């Protein structure tokens, strides 16, 4: 089996993951599901980076390190996003408290 596409197999899978995740982000209307979709897009980007860094002498450690950094940043942002979604859900009252919004906010 030496189809040329096999060299690109994981990178192409990554590209399709990005596409799927993007589609999910647009179609899903709940922020938690969108957060999940963003994670899928991120995983796809990482897989592109890894798949294209694999050549004759192994997988390049450089993109591997970038991916690990990316995964950690992604989980930090996911945690913050989830906390924010929970807070928005806990306060369903619309946020347009009109008068003195700013004055009240910062005290």
């Amino acid at each position: 089996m030496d189809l040329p596409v096999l060299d690109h197999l994981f990178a192409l899978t990554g590209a399709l993951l990005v596409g799927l995740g993007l589609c999910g982000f647009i179609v899903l209307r709940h922020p938690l599901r969108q957060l999940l979709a963003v994670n899928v897009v991120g995983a796809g980007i990482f897989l592109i980076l890894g798949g294209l860094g694999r050549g004759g002498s192994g997988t390049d450690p450089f993109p591997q390190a970038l991916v690990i950094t990316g995964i950690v940043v992604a989980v930090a942002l996911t945690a913050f996003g989830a906390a924010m979604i929970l807070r928005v859900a806990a306060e369903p009252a619309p946020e347009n408290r009109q008068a003195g919004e700013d004055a009240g906010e910062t005290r």
Partner: protein
Amino acid sequence: MTAAFDILLCVMILGTAGAALFLRDPLAAIVFLIVLGNLLGLAWLTLDAVNVALAEIAIGAGVTGVLLILARARLVALGDNVVCEPMPLWARLGAIALCAGFTAVLSCVVLSITPDSGLTARIEALMPRIGIENPVTGVLLAFRAYDTLLETFVLLGALVAVWSLGPDTAWPHPPAALRIFDPGLRSVAGAFGRVLLPMALVMAAYLVWAGSDLPGGAFQAGTVFAGGLLLAAIGGAIGLPRADSPALRLVLVLGPLVFLMIGLAGAVLGRFLLFPDGTAKMLIVTIEYALAASIAVTLALLVAGSPATPDKQD
């Protein structure tokens, strides 16, 4: 044979991703995201990237999965059942067409780039100067230590940001308890947590130590210990700390602080983050142990969430 395995793996990855995105039941979707994370870990193993595989399974599947399951459970408790209103058909078709077009172009772009080992040779040539064997740790903590330094502050900042979201009445109380309330369930989970916590500590220490020469490192180790902490908290073996506890804050900033101090010591000697010859390994391992401790506590508290008003607990 391997090609067949790779293709099967990629098909499973895409199928799982589809399920994680488009299943109607949110809990099932999150479970499929966890499965996706594990399959991606396998893909990274296939690519000989064991460090990434560990990070992907521990963080991408493990922590993210727990985080989303917990968020969903709390949303359901608030009366939001996390089900999306379906979009009108034309909008869905439009979105699908748009993404299909985008994916097609992206695939062409990916195919136009020849995979190569890139900087592998350069990195191998420089590794003897650091005195460790794992090239990924070398990139993370020597060549690109500056990225990693900033990233640890992103993690710390995320926790402070999560704290800032708590309602005014909640500060500085601990997050809503993670522990199981049913006494029978809790006794099982608690016993498990008590057994696992020391084991997780040992394993984390080993992962950092091994990380200089074998796959592993501060992030993977921190995540493993964070998992132990979370299980212990779920079983009620440990409680969650208050946000203003000085001891907690000291642990949280320990890793970034040690990293920053060692970087500044290098600056005094000539360059920020310079490791003098012969000391690189010692300094890297020091940084990694401090980082692993901070990362473990930070990740566990990120999962636990914002401070909660006390009367809502129990």
